[in-house]
Structures are given as C-alpha cells and as structure tokens.
C-alpha cells in the first residue's frame, strides 16, 4: 500500500479534512469521534520511528533521525492498511544523504492544503499560545522546526523541518516527483462539496455524492466545536484553550497589525500571489498607509 500524504503548514484545515475523510468512509456509521480520526500524523511520532526502525530516536541527532525517515516512510507504506492517509506538517525536503524525505516508492499522492498565511498566523498563535510576532518570525524562518519549542528537552514528536511558510508550500508543490492535488482552505469553506469531492476522487476512494454530503455535515465546524467542548480533543496543544477556534477566513483583518501583515507579505509575496492572497493584503496595507497607521 502507498500513502496519501495529507500535507499542510499547521492550521490550514488538515484536521477538518481528516474529519471529512473519516466520516466519508463507509464504516463511519454516523458522526465520527474527533478523537478517532484517520490520517493521524504517525510518521512524525517518536514511537513509530523507534518501533518500526528499531532505533532509539531519543539518542539520535535531528540529522540522523531525518536521514532515517525515508526508510521509515517506506516501512509505514508497507505496513499500513488502506486507506493509508498520513498527516504531515514537514516540508518536502531531502534528507541528509540526499534521499527524498517522502519517497516516491512510499507515495500514492499528496493532498496539499494551503491557507492565507495571514489567517494562519492568527490561528497558529492561538494554537501555540504564542504572540503573533513570534509566530511571524517562525513563519519567516527557513530553519523553523515543529519541535523548536523544546530544544533542551524531548517531546513525543520527531524534529520536523518546516522551512518558511512559502518555502513549505513550494517544497511540496514544485518538487516534480510526487503527484500533488492542492486545495485552498478558503475554497473548502466556500464550496466544501467541490473541494472535498475533488480530494476524495484524487485519493482514489470510491465516489458517493450522498455520503460526501453527510460527511461534510458531520464535519461542520459547530459540530466539531461541540464535540471538543463535550469530550475534549486529544490532538489539541495542552496550553491552548481550544483547537477548533473560529473556522473562518479573514480574521487577520482585525487581529494583525499592519507591520505584521507587511512582514508576511514581504517574505511570502510570490506564493501569496500564486494563491490569490496578495492583492487583499496589499489593498489593506495601502488603506492603512492612507489612514496614516
């Protein structure tokens, strides 16, 4: 079996997509629990690495771990029953030694989700309970790593190179080896049937329009939030008040300061333009300038 990677920068709709996919499976039988979603990020989990490869990641350097990850992904692809969805926030880079981190041999395809980085910054800051300024710095840092918060200790997660926000997107979209289907978060919101339908077809699941409609309904934002309020969500950051926060586009307009918008636009302009995020940001900045801010 080969893996369909659900790849995205953090806070770009990956969990929402996984909820739809989980509910779409014929065996779902009613609203699926948010605490039993398919496509969990098992490839980034220390336990998976240690047990599959037989190596102690906690005694290994980040470079050594990364060097072994291509082999881990091949072993996972071999072991996972279908449908083999795996969420990843890593960038699609090369491992030390030159092998592709996500080998073609382990890959059926890549669903890449992209979201306006201005909204990502707001959501990410909430998720990590960090200031927006720190998140902007993180999104603009080519050496950014998901475990960057814990350089002197250990978490359950492997070090994960993320590159910058736009570096992340380009790494997946321009690698030229793996088949990629790209979806904008904003399109998932505006037309969920079209957006999720295209993903379901790309992933090779059998097509059932009625089931997709139900799955999207079960994964509606208020329902996810209600589940989180009642049962909690075990994938939430422990420090964050909630995982499912707003589920909307455009909250950056009131949450970001012009200089923060400027910093993201300066760093990511070309990729923002590619996905239609740039003009709105520039209009906003021009208006702020006119208002003397």
């Amino acid at each position: 079996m080969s893996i369909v990677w659900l790849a995205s920068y953090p806070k770009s709709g990956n969990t929402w997509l996984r909820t739809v996919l989980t509910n779409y499976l014929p065996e779902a039988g009613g609203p699926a629990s948010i605490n039993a979603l398919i496509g969990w990020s098992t490839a980034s989990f220390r336990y998976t690495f240690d047990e599959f490869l037989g190596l102690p990641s906690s005694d290994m350097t980040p470079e050594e771990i990364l060097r072994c990850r291509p082999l881990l992904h091949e072993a996972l692809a071999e072991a996972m029953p279908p449908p083999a969805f795996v969420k990843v926030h890593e960038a699609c880079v090369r491992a030390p030694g030159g092998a592709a981190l996500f080998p073609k041999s382990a890959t059926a395809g890549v669903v890449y989700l992209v979201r306006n980085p201005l909204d990502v910054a707001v959501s990410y800051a909430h998720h990590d309970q960090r200031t927006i300024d720190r998140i902007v710095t993180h999104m603009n840092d080519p050496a950014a790593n998901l475990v960057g918060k814990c350089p002197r200790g250990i978490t359950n997660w492997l070090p994960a190179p993320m590159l910058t926000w736009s570096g992340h997107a380009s790494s997946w979209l321009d690698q030229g080896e793996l088949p990629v289907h790209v979806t904008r978060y904003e399109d998932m919101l505006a037309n969920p049937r079209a957006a999720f339908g295209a993903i379901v077809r790309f992933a090779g699941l059998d097509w059932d329009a009625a089931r997709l409609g139900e799955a999207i309904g079960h994964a509606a934002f208020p329902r996810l939030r209600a589940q989180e309020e009642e049962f909690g969500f075990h994938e939430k950051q422990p420090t964050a008040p909630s995982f499912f926060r707003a589920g909307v586009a455009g909250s950056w307009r009131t949450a970001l300061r012009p200089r923060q918008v400027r910093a993201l636009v300066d760093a990511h302009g070309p990729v923002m333009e590619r996905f239609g995020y740039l003009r709105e940001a520039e209009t906003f900045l021009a208006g702020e300038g006119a208002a003397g801010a």
Partner: protein
Amino acid sequence: MSRLLHRYTAYGLRVQSPIALPFVPASSAPDDEPDVTIRVGAVPPALPAPADKRGHWESAPGAFLLNVDGVARYLVTAGRDILVEPRGGGDRDMGVFLAGSVLAALLQQRGVVTFHASAIETGSGAVLFLGRSGDGKSSLLAAMVQRGYAMLADDVTGVVLDSGGHPTALSAFPCARLWADALDALGWQAPTRGRVREGLEKYLAPVERFRATPLAVRAAYMLTPSPGGGIEIEPCTRHAAFELLLSRYAYRRRYLSGLGQHPTHFRAVAAMAKQLPVLRVKRPVVHPLQINALADEIERSLRERGAEAASPAAVASG
C-alpha cells in the same frame, strides 16, 4: 589492534566489552567468565534467513542484526555474543546504541521481557513507570530518586517470571539519562557525566541510590500524555492493561517475532495484567515539565498502596 577490555554488570549479566558503554558504570566484579562478550569485527551484511526484517534491523531465532547508518553495525547471537563493526561512529556513539537497542535485543534472546519503562524500589516491591519515548519516564524516575526511592532501571526495564510465575524486575545499571530541561526542573545537583552524545542536550546522570538485585514487581504506572486538565491517576482494566503492556509499552516489540520470543512476552504480559495493579497516569504535556507535581501524585498513590520508599532519605539531589 587489541583494545582494553571493559567489564560491566547490567541486568544481572557480566558484560565484557572492548567498547566503553557510556551509561553503564564499570563493574568491580572479579574477572570471571563473562555472560556476554562484545567483540569488534566484520558483521555480515544480512542474516542468512531472517524471520523478520524492517527498517534497520533483521531478526531470526537466536540472531539479531542492527544497522545504524554512520555509526556501526551490530550482530547479537545466542543471548551471549555481540559483534560490532564500526561504520564511522566514535566509541561513544557506538556505545550508546550498544547499551540501548542492542542490549535490549540480547535480553530478548535470553527470554527477558523488555518494557519501555523506568523502575524504582519501594518498601513493597518494584514499581514500573511505563512510557513511550518522550512520555517522561526518565524524569519521573529522577524525581523519585530525589525523594529517596532507589533506582532499578531507566528507559528499558527487563522483566522475568520467577519460579512462582510472579513478574520480577531486573536491576539494570545505576545511571539515568536526563534532558537539560528535566535537570533544571528537578534542580539536579549531582554531577553528570556529560552529554549522552555530542549535539544532544541529554546528559548521563549517575545515580547512587540503586538497587542492584532483582525485585518482585508490585505495580505499574502507565504515563499517558493528555491534552489538558490536571494530573489524574486511575486504575486500568485488566483487559486494557494487557493490550497496552503487549503493544504500546513493549520495548522493540517488533524485534520479538523474528526472535521467536512472542510466547515469552505474552506469558509475562498476561501475568502482569492479572497479578498487578496497573494504573494510568494522565498528565498534561506542557513545558516546563511539572515533574515535581507528577512525583507528588505518584507518591500519594504509592502511599495509598502501602508502597513507600524502602529507606526514605532526606530529600536529596540525586
């Protein structure tokens, strides 16, 4: 080239090695016949007939091969012999894998069941803290040592069934491995023996308060990171305990099938799930580690079960 031979005692075994084992203090035991002999030499590229093979290892009954890119290749046979072929790693690098995954495979060949756990001695027996990599078992061990409990093992705890079928924990060696943030949170004052490896903020922390002989297991706590709330300790059903001990907390469970040791593993896990209280410890995964709050709750739980420190000491620092 002849190398100086080091002698160690680990998991009750006398080990002779030309490569220093970084976590294992040298043994002062007399120079009698070793149980385990480590040699340096050429390791074949593959096992002739591997029964299981994944990632970087292969296993067959009585034989286990591990390849650590850029460090060394290891061949473990008959629960007695370890052959090491250097592949670019220094002695410290080679020793780290030797004293961890490789020694665990050797224990498995000898019929010892390996759990991903640290272990302490209490007045009524051994207590295991089971956890996956990053769940906090080493820092909890260190906090308990500071509170007067003796250490039995860090990271990998070997368990055998005694003649009466009761699970017994083996004494590993008197050294914990602690990350810098845990040393800070604990206020660990005892000297460390430097980094486990260059480039890792993880340190070797020798432990004086050490139980050097096997001890019947009295209870097992499973460390389970949870997304929020406080620290909660609750009993686990026998069924759930069995499942989790068999899969999640087995150290290198996948080595076992090829080694033909599944039945041994199964019997030990069944005995533990049946005979012992197994408790689930839910704790928030936040940094700093809240390690002392966790140790407070564990101590309270141990007291409820009549399992205080065997020889409570004044709160010391390692």
